[in-house]
């Protein structure tokens, strides 16, 4: 299998789906002439023209709504947010328009649309550019939420998201665009709602999504040096959440740590822990612990920022604690 960057895997997915279906178009800030703020849309304007690769004014609410309207009339828009931080301006369109249209129209008006762009913290970008909003969208019935951690998942999930008949929130890792990984040749689809076991193990389950998958894998390596076998589960899609795969792992390991970059209160981790205590209560040998972003706006200072983010050492410490080794 060829090694492909996460960025190029997304680019392949867009290119293939736009070639497959003339109703698919890409719209957002700097997606065309500039070739994408993160170069995900490189070459698409040249290949598909300005009607299908549409540069917008800086108007997130407006162009998110334009996307929803186009979907109401039967197109399949892919709306790029330069980052998910800016999408807060568009959340009315995502929640009140996209997520609810099918329901409040009594099933008459589906909204097949993808809202995509990078989320999570990068490096020293400060409070307004470093946040994880997946829990906000996963909260809303009518939306699906994807957070791919690898190039292969990025490509396979984006292709499935574009074909899906519902609004899909697709949160890419701002720090993952340069990461390389194997991507299968030919048509590669990853179904929404199916978790992936990124590393098998038997002593403790680490549940992590997006950029935190790499953190969990690094923690698993550290734990292995001490003879502890950690299993890493990546839900890949947060709504619908593949709880059965997580439960099956916890039934095997009897211990679990949930890792996420976002804030801990009312979060993805809360939902995962809720499912585990309900469906695997008798299998647990220790309380489920969580490693989350610090409960503060992201600081700019390098050292403070490091303290605010989950890292492998924090995950190792939590894993040892649920194994009563800490």
């Amino acid at each position, binding site marked *: 299998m060829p090694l492909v960057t996460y960025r190029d895997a997304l680019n392949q997915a867009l290119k293939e789906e736009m070639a497959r279906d003339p*109703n698919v178009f890409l719209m957002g800030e700097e997606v065309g002439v500039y070739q994408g703020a993160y170069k995900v849309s490189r070459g698409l304007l040249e290949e598909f023209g300005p*009607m299908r690769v549409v540069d917008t004014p800086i*108007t997130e609410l*407006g162009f998110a709504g334009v996307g929803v*309207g186009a979907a109401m*009339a*039967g197109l399949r828009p892919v709306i790029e947010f330069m980052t998910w931080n800016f999408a807060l301006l568009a959340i009315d369109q995502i929640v009140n328009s996209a997520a609810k249209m099918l329901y409040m*129209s*009594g099933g008459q008006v589906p909204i097949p649309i993808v809202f995509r762009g990078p989320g999570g913290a990068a490096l020293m970008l400060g409070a307004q550019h470093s946040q994880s909003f997946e829990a906000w969208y996963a909260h809303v019935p009518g939306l699906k939420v994807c957070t791919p951690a690898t190039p292969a998942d990025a490509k396979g999930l984006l292709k499935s998201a574009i074909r899906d*008949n519902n609004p899909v929130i697709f949160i890419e890792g701002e720090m993952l665009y340069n990461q390389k990984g194997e991507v299968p040749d030919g048509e590669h689809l990853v179904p929404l709602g199916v978790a992936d076991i990124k590393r098998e193990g038997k002593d403790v389950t680490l549940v992590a999504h997006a950029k935190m998958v790499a953190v969990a894998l690094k923690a698993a390596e550290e734990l292995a040096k001490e003879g502890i076998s950690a299993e890493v589960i990546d839900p890949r899609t947060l709504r619908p959440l593949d709880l059965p795969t997580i439960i099956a792992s916890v039934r095997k390991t009897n211990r679990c740590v949930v890792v996420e970059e976002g804030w801990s209160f009312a979060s993805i981790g809360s939902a995962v822990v809720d499912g585990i205590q309900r469906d695997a209560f008798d299998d647990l040998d220790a309380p489920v612990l969580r490693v989350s972003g610090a409960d503060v706006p992201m600081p700019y200072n390098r050292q403070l920022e490091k303290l605010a983010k989950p890292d492998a050492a924090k995950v190792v410490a939590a894993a040892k604690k649920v194994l009563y080794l800490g």
Partner: protein
Amino acid sequence: MTDAVTTSEHQPAAEADALRRMLRDMLVIRRFEEKAAEAYAHGKIGGFCHLYIGQEAVAVGTMAALRPDDYIMTSYREHGQALARGVSARAVMAELFGKATGSSGGKGGSMHIFDAATNFLGGHAIVGGHIPLVTGVAFAIKYREGDQVSVGFFGEAAVNNGAFHEALNMAAVWRLPAIYICENNRYGMGTALERASAIYDVAQRACSYDMPAEVVDGMDVLKVRDAVARAAQRARDRYVPTLLEIRTYRFMGHSMSDPIHGHYRTKDEVEQAREKDPIHTFADKLKADGVMDDERWQTMEAEVADEVDDAVRFADESPDPAPEALTSDVYRDGSS
């Protein structure tokens, strides 16, 4: 449709049927809304219920200038637009009653009437939130190189929010076939336009987008029809969007929980506006032109009363949605 290019030089005899049809459509809305108010008082309709009484000429004049394949979107005061577009009184009333036979299966309610068959793409209940959707539908039309128009209704209070500005700016930059209809009924709930907007003439805002605009007398159904026809022509022929400020007046309170005048306007003001009642003035005009007479009017009144009574009876007798409807239509199965 030949009506779509009619100018203000009307030939009453030639289009007598169309004119009587418009009068009837306005009357249906009026009587429908009166019955809705009654049903609300009896607890048959819940939640918020915003009546269209006084504004009938805006919806009816607009629809008379459009084609069946055009698209309509509107805000939450939308019973009138749905009826004028051709959604049946039964389906609209049943939706107000929350019944399974309603236009949205009872899951939308008064503020969310949808009818895909007539391209009636909803009542939307966040002020201004649907204006970008109108632009999006217009984008889809141009994307497919079609000649339909995307028509959006909203109140004058919506023009002070960002969604209005963002949506009109993009429609103008990209030259999209949209008609933005500001139904200026003077009050955003209880706040008069001049207390909320730095510019009194909403139509002037179109200058910011280099977009054609008109101020239209919304109490005159023919003037509305002509203005919308001109805008539709620009959109179909040249992909030019238009902002129409249609000046109208709400004879009732903002919603059923709001008295007719309250603290924000006087009884005299409401009574003066009622003297320009769009239905009575149009009926008088048609009588003067020989298109209507007293007998025809009485027959029309009786037929409309029957139609609305039938809608109420239908809504009342229809079943509630089945419990399974709670969880259907959250997601659409399948993929492209």
